């Protein structure tokens, strides 16, 4: 449009407007609001992907989810999302959704109506229990289970059938965080919340590529630093990542030596007199546990730790092996950097948050390294206050809500451990089942559950919302186990995956906003969403699948819920477990109305910082009070450095590290069906350091063969892509079901948490 025409048009429009004002009685035209201007119907739901737990608004049109925006009222993300969240609704609409059940007949999967498949699952379960006992049936769930899914699974298996064969994939991602907190504080889950970001002066990231894994939280950190350049981000890492690029200081350490670095920090804190003596006297006990505790690579591995009391003097003495100079030799981090880091922890004027996630948790000494970061915060009293605290980030959207809070692990109940008679009594009372029915002994943790399947102790396994045939370490053994004669595998899924490939029955699941549910995120935030769209075909929520099978097995009294109100009923029933100021959960109506509520929710108030009288209704007095342990103290554990289960040697000279990329969620079964995300990272690859690549005569894009003692794989080399591993290391993302990197990984785990280490094993790299 020419400028003159434009002005003419403006004049015309102005004249029309003026005419309307001058002749108010005259109707010029009916208001012609284009229907497309009416806007979408925006409804809240938490993001279905990572543990950040962003609040989303889902745009609905003609019964379908058609758009997403960040919920500006959510205190988590304040309207911002990441690329997964923005495209999350597309995960509902892959063309190959399961819309009906599938049953294996003569070796081939054939479609059958869901009701018929549910009959088969129930009868097979009964048959198996009759033939080989109740401990031969098991369920393997997920940190992506909704809270009602996990609650119903626990009630069904532990309370009705009477087996502790309940595990969830959060064992593979959060177990060390749990045991770390239990051993130090006696209660699970972080003391702080994301608001800590708005108060801290220093952020120390331990083995945590936050820019890709918790992008929205990292953006909050960056936003804070933009306003106050004196704020520092310190990245402790084994691989140079996007997070490193945005950090003020990067310290690259040798795998496993985080144990030693943390001890050196504590050594320096004590040597320089930076410890808060009053805090230590009032709130801290010192302990030492067992050493040389093994790696769990053998079947039926057992370990029980023992807490031996220490004095502060004895603890100090033990730390003498961890002077910055000694640790420099082991870790590769210069002593002066270690001293600098210690001074940040030690400076009483600096508020400091430590963040970590899989680097610490997927670690054969995962519990220890969690304990050690707490030590640094406890020595300096930097804990349970705005901007000061250790913060264990969560991987999955409801690893906290469903697995840690509902207790969908072999040793847990919705409140307390199975070994605790009071916990069993409470469960029996709320579930209205005889207390004798709830077994008092834990059975199998995840790795051992699949070993038991291999050995034949478990005969029936129901898998929901997880893809173990991509994620189990040392994958071949466990895949072969599922294919053995006399094993029956039920898989509740939304898309075909390597796990549905080995199923005897596939139940089509209604996912995320196709049903009502709740997730609990990493900052103790419970978030509810309504059913917003219809599931495809006969797809049914995992909660309802479990209820249907339980009823078919005769547990109608225990599962009396009506379909229209079952989520409310289940929530209110579950909430009884958590009564009291230490755990109180918000009522259903509160959850529906708000973009998430932090627990403990006491007298209508959220708890932002636990263990401090100013913020926490359960804490006595006006200062700190660590009420989780019987002695009302937090425990500082001396934990030494111990070598990993497998280290590079002459035959397998490289470290193999595995992980994620921002675009893909876990095994990619959802995100790869979202074109934008798939096209950004269409397949997995092996990151190499340029010097290693040169030595191997490998250029970017060449094919390389990785071989470990367990398997071998050919994939494309990537040099100086988004990450750069240190020399002598390779990194491979695990999202790609056709490049199964877990064929190579080792099933060694932390003996206390039983969480496998996906970050360290030895491989050989050759040009293919």
């Amino acid at each position, binding site marked *: *449009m020419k400028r003159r025409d434009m002005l003419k048009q*403006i004049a015309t*429009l102005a004249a*029309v*407007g003026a005419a*309307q004002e001058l002749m108010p009685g005259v109707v*010029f*035209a009916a208001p*012609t*609001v284009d229907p497309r*201007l*009416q*806007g*979408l119907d925006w409804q809240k739901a938490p993001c279905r992907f990572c543990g950040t737990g962003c609040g989303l608004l889902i745009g609905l*049109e003609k019964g*379908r989810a*058609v*758009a*997403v*925006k*960040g919920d*500006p009222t959510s205190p988590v993300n*304040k309207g*911002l*999302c*990441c*690329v997964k969240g*923005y495209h999350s*609704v597309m995960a509902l609409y*892959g*063309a190959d959704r399961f819309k009906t059940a599938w049953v294996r007949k003569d070796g081939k999967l054939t479609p059958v109506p869901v009701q018929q498949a549910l009959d088969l699952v129930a009868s097979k379960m009964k048959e198996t229990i009759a033939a080989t006992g109740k401990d031969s049936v098991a369920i393997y769930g997920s940190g992506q289970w909704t809270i009602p899914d996990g609650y119903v699974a626990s009630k069904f298996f532990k309370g009705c059938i009477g087996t502790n064969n309940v595990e969830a994939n959060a064992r593979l991602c959060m177990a060390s965080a749990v045991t770390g907190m239990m051993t130090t504080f006696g209660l699970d889950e972080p003391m702080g919340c994301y608001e800590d970001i708005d108060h801290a002066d220093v952020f120390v990231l331990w083995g945590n590529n936050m*820019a890709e894994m918790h*992008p929205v939280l*990292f953006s909050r950190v*960056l*936003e804070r630093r*933009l*306003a106050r350049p004196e704020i520092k981000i310190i990245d402790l890492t084994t691989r140079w990542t*996007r997070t*490193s*690029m*945005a*950090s003020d200081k*990067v310290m690259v350490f040798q795998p496993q030596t985080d144990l030693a670095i943390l001890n050196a920090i504590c050594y320096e804190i004590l040597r320089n007199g930076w410890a808060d003596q009053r805090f230590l006297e009032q709130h801290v006990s010192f302990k030492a546990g067992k050493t040389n505790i093994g790696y769990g690579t053998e079947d039926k591995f057992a370990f029980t730790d023992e807490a031996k009391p220490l004095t502060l003097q004895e603890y100090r003495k033990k730390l003498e092996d961890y002077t910055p100079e000694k640790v420099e030799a082991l870790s590769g981090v210069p002593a002066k950097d270690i001293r600098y880091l210690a001074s940040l922890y030690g400076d009483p004027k600096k508020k400091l948050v430590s963040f970590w996630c899989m680097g610490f948790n997927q670690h054969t000494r995962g519990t220890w390294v969690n304990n050690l970061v707490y030590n640094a915060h406890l020595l300096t009293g930097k804990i349970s206050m705005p901007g000061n605290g250790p913060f264990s980030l969560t991987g999955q959207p409801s690893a906290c809500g469903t697995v840690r809070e509902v207790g969908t692990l072999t040793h847990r109940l919705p409140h307390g451990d199975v070994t605790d008679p009071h916990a069993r009594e409470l469960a029996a009372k709320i579930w209205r089942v005889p207390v004798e029915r709830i077994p008092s002994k834990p059975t199998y943790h995840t790795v051992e559950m699949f070993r038991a399947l291999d050995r034949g102790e478990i005969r029936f396994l129901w898998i929901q919302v997880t893809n173990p045939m991509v994620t189990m370490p040392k994958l071949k053994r466990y895949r072969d186990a599922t294919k053995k004669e006399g094993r029956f595998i039920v898989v509740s899924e939304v*898309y075909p995956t390597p796990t549905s490939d080995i199923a005897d029955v596939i139940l089509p699941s209604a996912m995320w906003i196709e049903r009502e549910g709740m997730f609990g995120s990493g900052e103790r935030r419970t978030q509810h969403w309504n059913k917003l769209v219809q599931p495809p075909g006969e797809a049914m929520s995992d909660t309802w699948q479990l209820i249907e099978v339980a009823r078919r097995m005769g547990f109608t009294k225990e599962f009396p819920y009506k379909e229209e109100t079952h989520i409310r009923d289940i929530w209110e029933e579950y909430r009884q477990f958590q009564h009291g100021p230490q755990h109180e959960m918000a009522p259903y109506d509160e959850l529906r109305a708000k973009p998430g509520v932090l627990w403990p929710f006491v007298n209508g108030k959220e708890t932002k910082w636990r263990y401090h009288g100013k913020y926490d209704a359960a804490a006595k007095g006006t200062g700190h009070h660590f009420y989780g342990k019987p002695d009302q103290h937090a425990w500082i554990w001396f934990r030494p450095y111990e070598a990993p289960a497998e280290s590079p040697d002459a035959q397998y000279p490289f470290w193999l590290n595995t992980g994620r990329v*921002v675009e893909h969620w876990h095994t*990619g079964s959802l995100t790869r*069906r*979202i*074109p*934008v*995300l*798939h*096209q*950004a*990272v*269409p397949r997995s690859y092996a990151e190499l350091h340029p010097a290693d690549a040169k030595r191997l005569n490998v250029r970017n894009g060449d094919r390389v063969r990785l071989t470990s003692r367990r398997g071998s794989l050919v994939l494309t080399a990537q040099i*100086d*892509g988004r990450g*750069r591993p240190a020399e002598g290391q390779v990194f491979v993302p695990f999202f790609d079901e056709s490049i199964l990197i877990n064929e190579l990984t080792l099933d060694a785990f932390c003996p206390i948490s039983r969480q496998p280490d996906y970050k360290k094993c030895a491989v050989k790299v050759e040009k293919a």
Partner: protein
Amino acid sequence: MQPDKSRHIQIVLATLLMGATVYVLGNNLMADREPPAMATTTAREPQLVPEPKVVLKDAGMFEEPVAAETAGQADDKPVSKRDLAQFYSRRAYPGAPPIIPHELLDKRGIGGNTCTGCHAQGGYVPLFKAYAPVTPHPQWSNCVQCHVPAAEKTRFRETEFVPATRPSLVKAALPGGPPAVPHSLDYRGACQACHAGPAAVKEIRTPHPERQNCRQCHVSHDRPDTAFERQQP
């Protein structure tokens, strides 16, 4: 939520300044503005800030016609012909973060040191022979958190996703009235970023970039109409 006021003011000022430049100098002069050199941003690991040696493959950037459009344009720098069809082809649905239609200049960075070199203020980018679209949310620096390039155009599996209906361009409640804003304003409240300047999409370019207080006349119409109800006292 307590957004940082000073930053918002900065953004508003930057936006106003840009609009004013458009007004005072006109489009031709505006075209002479080069994006600032990348070195002006703080490089925290100087040896790692990559040289912008880019081999551009694919990705639709060159689908864009770059021939000069307006008669009488004195220099040889083309005026952008970005149109709505192309605008939507880069978004999964209206309002989705657009993909990056060129290779990343710095794969390892988060974008704060590279993307913003061109996209914070716009201007002509000789490297791409195009005008850089301007981000409406320069406060965020982890660009690749939301915007990703397409390495290839394959599909893993087919999708049946149907995006939201595109907002209408027929817009006013009364003939001649100012059109309503048919999209959400969250992180897209800096109107000038997309609606003014040489990189703006033709169909949604404002005819009056000299007017700065957009929302004086254009109200957001992002939510469904609900009848006004008077609260009972």
